[in-house]
């Protein structure tokens, strides 16, 4: 029996059969891209191009504002059409740069698209390559990768954990990456290992992806310091803290980061992007995403340029069926329901899920019956139902514990009363932070 984390967790239907066997396809170049500048967690980047300026693919169009920030690159070659506020999936008005493609896809100088090996003789240059490529965590949180790879001295790191869990239902993008490019992922892992200077890297994969486990196993072979671990399928194992618990049996204390227990977690998608950034000097201008669900005609795994309008993606996949009930960006558990497809693909977009009306309609809500199923489901050891009731009553000042919530949604998934626990906890988190801010400024 494979290991997993011990507390909480659920096992929703995996639904990965839609796209598991489908190789990654390239989406044709979009005619126009709209690239938001607030794609990373932390400070939004500052534009460095002007409207009507010609840009090449991979050219920097926005500089990072501070350390916890990443540069943004043009994902197509063409002409900057406008710089202005647009609706994105993150915010109703984020600063975006619109580029009209010239269809040539001329890359910026210095990018070696054909290189397929990392030169390990100068590992000190890796971190700068990763930073310059604008890498952010590809799992969904979009934390700048170079920040995670430079832990402060007071938190010595001994293990790099590579997250090939992909515990969200429907999503298969990481699975396909591991199947198709295991060697490149391994090189990316080795590069990150060299940057961190750690002796051990562990690639964790859930046991519902046996082919991926086999492929990565074969690529790793007898590489010293790299292990592949198969883990028992359980949601939310892909969350950093749960993954560290499952693999290293270390508990990250509340309010602390993985590096405080000596671990750094990076997604396999990020490992692949690290390979491209270091070996090919290729900035993060495209990513692999899963387009899936019962209400899309032709589910696919796609390689998509950042900033591509979702409408292009949907069109390429044959369009949505008439019974479309909900369109979700990201996985169905933690992703975000979109109210219009008029938004672009982001660096953190791992999937686009089309749910039909029957499965997406929320059931009528009833009173909490204190059954405690949310408590059993919570991987963080919280009391979600009670906290949701407090949030409902507006007692946000008592909800400091809400900050430990991962927003994984296990509590709400298991709730027999269909209570909107997750949303209430999100509200509590937000309001508690606001209260703290107010206190600080007072």
């Amino acid at each position, binding site marked *: 029996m494979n290991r997993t984390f011990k507390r909480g967790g659920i096992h929703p239907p995996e639904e990965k059969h839609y796209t598991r066997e489908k190789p990654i396809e390239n989406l044709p170049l979009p005619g126009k891209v709209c690239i938001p500048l607030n794609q990373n967690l932390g400070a939004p980047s500052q534009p460095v191009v002007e409207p009507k300026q010609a840009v090449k693919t991979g050219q920097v169009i926005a500089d990072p504002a501070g350390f916890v920030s990443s540069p943004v690159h043009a994902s197509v070659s063409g002409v900057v059409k406008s710089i202005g*506020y647009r609706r994105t999936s993150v915010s109703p008005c984020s600063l975006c740069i619109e580029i009209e493609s010239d269809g040539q896809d001329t890359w910026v100088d210095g990018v070696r698209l054909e290189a397929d090996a990392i030169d390990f003789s100068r590992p000190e240059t890796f971190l700068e390559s990763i930073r310059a490529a604008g890498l952010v965590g590809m799992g969904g949180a979009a934390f700048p990768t170079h920040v995670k790879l430079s832990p402060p001295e007071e938190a010595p790191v001994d293990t790099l954990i590579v997250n090939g869990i992909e515990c969200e239902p429907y999503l298969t993008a990481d699975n396909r990456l591991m199947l198709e490019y295991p060697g490149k992922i391994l090189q990316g892992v080795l590069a990150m290992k060299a940057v961190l200077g750690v002796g051990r890297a562990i690639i964790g994969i859930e046991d519902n992806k046996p082919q991926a486990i086999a492929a990565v196993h074969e690529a790793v072979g007898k590489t010293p310091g790299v292990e592949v671990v198969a883990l028992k399928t359980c949601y939310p194992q892909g969350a950093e803290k749960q993954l560290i618990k499952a693999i290293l049996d270390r508990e990250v204390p509340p309010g602390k980061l993985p590096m405080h227990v000596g671990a750094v977690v990076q997604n396999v998608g990020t490992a692949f992007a690290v390979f491209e950034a270091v070996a090919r000097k290729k900035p993060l201008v495209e990513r692999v995403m899963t387009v899936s669900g019962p209400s899309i005609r032709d589910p696919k795994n796609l390689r998509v340029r950042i900033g591509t309008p979702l409408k292009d993606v949907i069109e390429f996949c044959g369009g949505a069926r008439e019974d479309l009930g909900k369109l979700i960006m990201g996985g169905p558990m933690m992703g975000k*329901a979109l109210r219009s497809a008029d938004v672009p693909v982001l660096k953190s977009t791992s999937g686009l899920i089309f749910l039909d009306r029957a499965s997406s309609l*929320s059931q009528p809500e009833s009173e909490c019956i204190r059954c405690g199923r949310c408590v059993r489901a919570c991987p963080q050891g919280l009391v979600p139902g009670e906290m949701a009731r407090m949030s*409902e009553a507006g007692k946000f000042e008592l909800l400091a514990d809400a900050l430990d919530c991962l927003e994984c949604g296990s509590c709400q998934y298991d709730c027999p009363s269909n209570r909107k626990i997750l*949303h209430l906890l999100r509200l509590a988190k937000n309001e508690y932070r606001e209260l703290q801010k107010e206190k600080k400024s007072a």
Partner: protein
Amino acid sequence: MAVILYSALVLGGLGALLSVVLLVAARRFAVYEDPLINAVEDALPGANCGGCGFAGCRAFAESIVRTRDADAFCPVGGRETAERIAGMLGMEVSGKEPPVAVVMCVGSLDGASFVGRYDGVMDCRAAAIIDGGERVCPYGCLGLGTCRAACQYDAISIIEGVARVDPEKCTGCGSCVKACPRGIIRMVPRGSRVYVACSSHDVGKLIRGYCRFGCIGCRLCVKTCEHNAVQFSDNLARVDPDKCTRCGQCIAVCKPKTIQGADLSPEALEASKKPPRKRKPAKPATREANP
């Protein structure tokens, strides 16, 4: 018999001793408190709403008795309470009236565009964190009634999907301003409610796509106002209540009917309904300056 006698003596003695201790303690540790504080607190409404800026009615009473601040004002009690308190403290009432809240959005159900179906917690703050609500406008009223719940005086109602403030009931306490996640409720001086009821910073072309009542940035109001009371910045006009004379001219020229005027004199109301004038005559001063 002896048992009863001893008990009575011991308990009586103990009682006498403790009463002396209490007496000494009461004398020694007595704190003088101005009786006016209690009197003022009694005169206040006791809602503890915080609208005055203090933690509650008691804190307000303590402060006003100590500082005799003529500008301190209980928005709930209004002028009557102010006069009563002023009488107690022997002060004059300053002429200030409490402000009144206005909602800077009038994008009602038939005027604004809506998309999708919001399925989350019925609270504007909850909707705001997931970019929810059904209104297309990213700045406008979410219409889920968090301000209505925050108002202790039942002054806010959601009409046609937009929050509206009843000025008669509004005490100017400002709870709704704090509650609104979109920050579209503002306090304006009572009796001078001429305001641009839109909060969208989008350009006119975009706004026209999603709201019939949005400020489209034509600046006719800025050009028309003879008192320089309308400022325009970041694609949005704003009326400065200090300069506004409530003549109604800007209301008359505003094509999307974004500018609202609620405290107009009958003449101004008439003027606000007139068709917009063609052009404002240029000021002679500027003509001389630019030959």
